[in-house]
């Protein structure tokens, strides 16, 4: 019996300690997904709370023989979609949030500035994607789910995931290549 299955069995028996273990096992991954989709830390935390409350209520119905990660991701992606639908805020909040994260000390200021700029460029390019393409990019590239898992999480066929990835990839390439900051870097590199 897998770790998730054991946790589910203990949770069904009313053991809240097992539920806490489940929370700590998946909280970061789920929080990152919600944060990457919504771009808002408060919304991500709210989605995380709702996600685990719903998961607890549905614990009797879940298939314990399967890993819980895709199922939990499916819940939090839907909750993030709901939040986006209510607020339509992207990506200003994420920018502010990431700016706070980037205030840590850097061993090499020049390298830090360069990496920070590239990070900003890519993040902005991801932000230009529509919600469906952004979700696919977050789940497949960022979270590392397989195509099948991504399809399950987004409740769509694998072919749809592939086409969304393809379009997202094309859009990202266009965005990045048209960015003047990267263009100057590329020109400098080819000299």
């Amino acid at each position, binding site marked *: 019996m897998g770790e998730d299955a054991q946790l589910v069995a203990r*949770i*069904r*028996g*009313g053991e*809240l300690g097992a*539920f*806490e273990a489940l*929370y*700590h096992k998946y*909280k*970061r991954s789920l*929080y*990152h997904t919600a*944060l*990457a989709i919504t771009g808002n*830390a408060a919304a*991500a*935390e709210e989605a*995380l*709370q709702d996600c*685990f*409350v719903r998961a*607890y*209520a*549905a*614990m*009797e*119905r879940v298939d314990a023989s399967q890993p819980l990660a895709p199922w939990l991701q499916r819940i939090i992606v839907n909750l993030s979609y709901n939040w986006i639908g209510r607020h339509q805020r992207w990506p200003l909040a*994420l920018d502010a*949030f*990431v700016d706070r*994260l*980037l205030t840590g000390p850097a061993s090499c200021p020049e390298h830090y500035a*360069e*990496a920070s*700029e*590239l*990070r900003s460029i*890519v*993040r902005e390019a*991801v932000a230009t994607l529509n919600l469906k393409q952004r979700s696919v*990019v*977050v789940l*497949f*590239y*960022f979270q*590392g789910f397989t*195509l099948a898992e991504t399809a399950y999480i987004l409740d769509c066929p694998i072919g749809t995931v*592939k086409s969304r*990835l*393809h379009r997202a*990839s094309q859009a*990202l*390439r266009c965005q*990045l*290549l048209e960015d003047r900051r*990267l263009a100057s*870097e*590329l020109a400098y*590199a080819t000299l």
Partner: protein
Amino acid sequence: MSSLMQRFESGNDLDGLWSDDDELGRLVRWSLSTSIGDAEPSPEAWHTILERVREQPTSGRAQPDSRCFSAPLAALVQAAVVGCVLMTLGLGVRRDVIVARSSLAAAVAPSSESPPACEPLRAAIPDRYSLTGLDEEERPFRAGGNIREATLPS
């Protein structure tokens, strides 16, 4: 950064889009990981979840939908109301005679045969306050499903 972007710019990996070696994927993963990879939910999040979970009556069990209760409860209430109405009609109306509603409205006791105690009350109510303004002798009554003008049975 430049070397990475040079490789990315070539676009030769379009066919290998879904491979782990995809440069674009690595670039996105690196960007998002370094941007939000250190982010964590606040410690209060778990306490909030715990409080909300403890409010649920059954631990770890699927909560019954409130709508599941509403339908049987509504049916039960409807059945009770219909039962009361039928019981009232059954007690108040003779089996073969249904008196006009206006005449029943004046009666206090649930019987087609008005008890003597009700007579003063009925006599005290002027005709203008009655529902039809007709004398009892003029009111129709139904016997056997047919409505015809007749006098009330004594």
